[in-house]
């Protein structure tokens, strides 16, 4: 015991300075690591920013543009070509209020349709839709025969000037009937999902003007880009 006591005290007095250096090195290493960690955390947080306000506005306005009750569609996901031309930024903001204070552009197949401001950096959302354009097709048919419309339509207008017709059938179903003879012009709504054959009653004479509005659709991509 008497020998071991001074031995134990000697090395501890030698190690005093070494401990201080180790402490300094340890603090420096720790501080550097804290700095690197903060940098990583900052980068991760910046990368996690998904611009939720812009995204919400883009998703909501794209959804409302192609909805069935939108002013620019005929039915769900089918855009009306002529109504698209009359779409203004003000009407679009009324339709989709999240766009109120944002710069936005609506593109159809890359062509800008509505634009306000310059949304260079922002969120874009795409939807797939059809653009339909309807054109009137008029043909004159003899009332003693039947006519099959080559392309499907959702409404047919018939003009009976110069004809004596009591009954009109669409695919065998009676859609118009007047005992004394039909007069003027009548519009009939028909199913878009079947080919239409129009026939008249057996005693019909003269000619009937049949006007149908077949629609032609093409596929398109609707893109809304919003930068608030």
């Amino acid at each position, binding site marked *: *015991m008497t020998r*071991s006591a001074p*031995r*134990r005290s*000697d*090395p501890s007095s030698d*190690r005093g300075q*070494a*401990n201080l250096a*180790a*402490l300094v*090195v*340890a*603090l420096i*290493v*720790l501080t550097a*690591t*804290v700095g*690197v*960690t903060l940098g*990583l*955390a900052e980068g*991760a*947080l910046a*990368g*996690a920013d*998904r611009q939720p306000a812009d*995204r919400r506005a883009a*998703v909501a306005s*794209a959804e409302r543009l*192609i909805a069935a009750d939108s002013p620019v569609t005929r*039915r*769900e*996901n*089918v855009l009306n070509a002529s109504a698209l031309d009359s779409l203004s930024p003000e009407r679009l903001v009324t339709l989709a209020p999240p766009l109120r204070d944002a710069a936005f552009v609506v593109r159809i197949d890359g062509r800008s349709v509505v634009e306000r401001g310059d949304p260079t950096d922002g969120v874009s*959302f*795409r*939807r*797939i*839709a*059809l653009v339909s354009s309807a054109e009137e097709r008029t043909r004159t048919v003899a009332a003693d025969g039947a006519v099959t419309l080559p392309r*499907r339509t959702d409404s047919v207008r018939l003009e009976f000037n110069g004809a004596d017709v009591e009954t009109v059938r669409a695919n065998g179903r009676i859609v118009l009937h007047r005992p004394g003879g039909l007069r003027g012009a009548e519009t009939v709504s028909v199913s*878009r*999902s*079947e080919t239409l054959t129009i026939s008249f009653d057996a005693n019909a004479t003269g000619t009937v003007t049949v006007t149908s509005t077949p629609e032609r659709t093409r*596929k398109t*991509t609707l893109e809304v880009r919003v930068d608030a």
Partner: protein
Amino acid sequence: MRDERRSACAVPDRAQLSLPVVEAAVGVAFLLAVAASFGLALPAPATAEAQLDAFADDAGTVLAGEPPRHAGDTRLGEVTRSPAAFERERGALRDRVRRILGDNLLFRVETPHGAVGFERPNGVATGRASVATAGGEVVVWVWYV
């Protein structure tokens, strides 16, 4: 007594590891663990899936709104009517979906009588939409090439 003396002698020979260095090593390991959790544990943004879901939904809506080629209420109703109708229409359905979706998307359309399109891959973001028809459910899967 002998054991105690031997241990007391052994300490100065082995040069005890400096405690601050040990603490610093533990601290660095802890901080790096926190940093790694920032780098690794953040989920990837699910924005691609939202976009793909919208594409699948649009494809299903467009198909469900199209008139049938022969019989049935809609184009999707036609392919779910019977196995024979599906076999007859599968080529046309595949071409139609391919045209609707464009070149950068692959797809699979599953009907009660079979499926058209490509095999669904594992591990990529996919969008899904289902359409109810009179003959059963039609599921549209969409993913990027």
